[in-house]
């Protein structure tokens, strides 16, 4: 085989190297350095963290390339950045800058309320959010190389991420148990590509890694998501909206690795100070639910 770039193996493989790790949202070079020193496996370069996007309202777009560039210069770990759903130009701009992963993200205001990016056409890999297996497989069908739960970003409330992780896991178990001659109808009902369902049935698991995201605020939250089967965690507002970002960052990294060592998590959780202030789901109106921005 001659040298091949941008293949599925290379794009999915990059996400496999992130397993068991924590990917942290940062808005400048200084935060990126704190994240790296705490043991983050990657940083997500943004203009604002989700809770500030929520507070600011208006249209949320791709970050200023200057911020992304400064973060890329500041750290040696991979740098991810968010593009609006369906925004071909934002995604190509980020790819041209050499970011390591693009999050086609419902945290930003969608540019296209019907179609997602055809991610298979890019050399850079993509991560996308999902609430259930149908959504997960539509994104993989479009070329996503990594998944994450949508959760409800910027709330510091873990309930939606738990719901989405459990839903995907339960549906994977169902597919594995479904007989071959019933799989096509499952594909129809789920709105998912048949070939991918068949692949899950044969593999016994998703063909790409699936991280937890959207509401993780404490080391215990990270450990919870790992124990539910997440391959790793994204922490958005939870670190730099807490009272002591460095301590929170370090503690969440250790809790993610040692998620079954509860004695260690006791020690990690002591004296961290205030986590970010959370939002109760019923206080979010329909239009404030970022997870419902795409299907």
């Amino acid at each position: 085989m001659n040298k091949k770039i941008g293949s599925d193996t290379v794009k999915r493989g990059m996400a496999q190297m992130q397993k068991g790790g924590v990917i942290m949202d940062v808005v400048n070079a200084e935060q990126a350095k704190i994240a790296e020193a705490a043991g983050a496996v990657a940083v997500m370069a943004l203009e604002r963290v989700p809770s500030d996007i929520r507070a600011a309202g208006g249209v949320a777009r791709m970050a200023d390339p200057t911020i992304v560039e400064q973060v890329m210069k500041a750290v040696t770990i991979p740098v991810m950045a968010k593009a609006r759903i369906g925004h071909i130009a934002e995604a190509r701009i980020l790819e041209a800058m050499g970011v390591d992963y693009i999050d086609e993200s419902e945290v930003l205001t969608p540019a296209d309320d019907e179609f997602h990016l055809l991610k298979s056409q890019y050399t850079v890999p993509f991560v996308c959010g999902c609430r259930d297996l149908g959504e997960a497989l539509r994104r993989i069908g479009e070329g996503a190389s990594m998944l994450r739960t949508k959760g409800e970003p910027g709330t510091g409330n873990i309930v939606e991420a738990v719901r989405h992780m459990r839903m995907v896991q339960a549906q994977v178990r169902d597919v594995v148990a479904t007989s071959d001659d019933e799989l096509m109808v499952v594909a129809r009902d789920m709105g998912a590509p048949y070939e991918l369902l068949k692949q899950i049935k044969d593999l016994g698991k998703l063909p790409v890694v699936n991280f937890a995201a959207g509401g993780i605020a404490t080391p215990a939250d990270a450990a919870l998501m790992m124990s539910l089967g997440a391959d790793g965690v994204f922490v958005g507002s939870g670190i730099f909206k807490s009272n002591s970002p460095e301590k929170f960052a370090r503690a969440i990294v250790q809790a993610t690795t040692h998620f079954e060592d509860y004695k260690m998590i006791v020690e990690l959780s002591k004296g961290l100070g205030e986590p970010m202030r959370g939002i109760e789901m019923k206080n979010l109106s329909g239009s404030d639910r970022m997870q419902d921005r795409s299907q």
Partner: protein
Amino acid sequence: MKKKVGVLALQGAVSEHISQINQLGGQGIAVKTPADLAQVQGLIIPGGESTAISRLIQQVNLYEAIQEFAKTNPVFGTCAGLILCGSGITDGGEKLKPLNLIDIAVTRNGFGRQVDSFEVDLDIENVGKAIPSVFIRAPFIDSVGQGVKTLATYEDKIVMAEQGNILVCSFHPELTDNNQVTGYFMSKIIP
């Protein structure tokens, strides 16, 4: 007796290595603590983020434990694991503390960022010809000390080497269906 092969399970591509070890008739065991390390006869340090893994190694007192283990048992580092097994880092070395198991100096992300990541078939001494190899934000070896044998090069860069019991490669044999590289490592383990 199955060979008990540990995979350092602090962060990175752990399950992929464990399934290749099991395929080859060994018993893959996740290693998170010095107590886990005491149960195995060989250790793979997998790909992942070298800065993150280095920090986690030190937090659970595995640094000296792995150095001690490597004196009498084989260790195999892939990608981030190669960086960690090495003795020096050409750039950004202050961010992590290599284990100094093999006398090599390494350039991290030497082949570039993710958009430059690639797969290619490599001829590897002692292993075989045209072995599928996956390079992800991969490092390369700048220089090797006396007693280190180069096993493979790509574009004039050293990408695989060994010194006694210690084996390192820049790429990811665990991401392919070919388990010859892992098999070669396991042949070094004498239960």
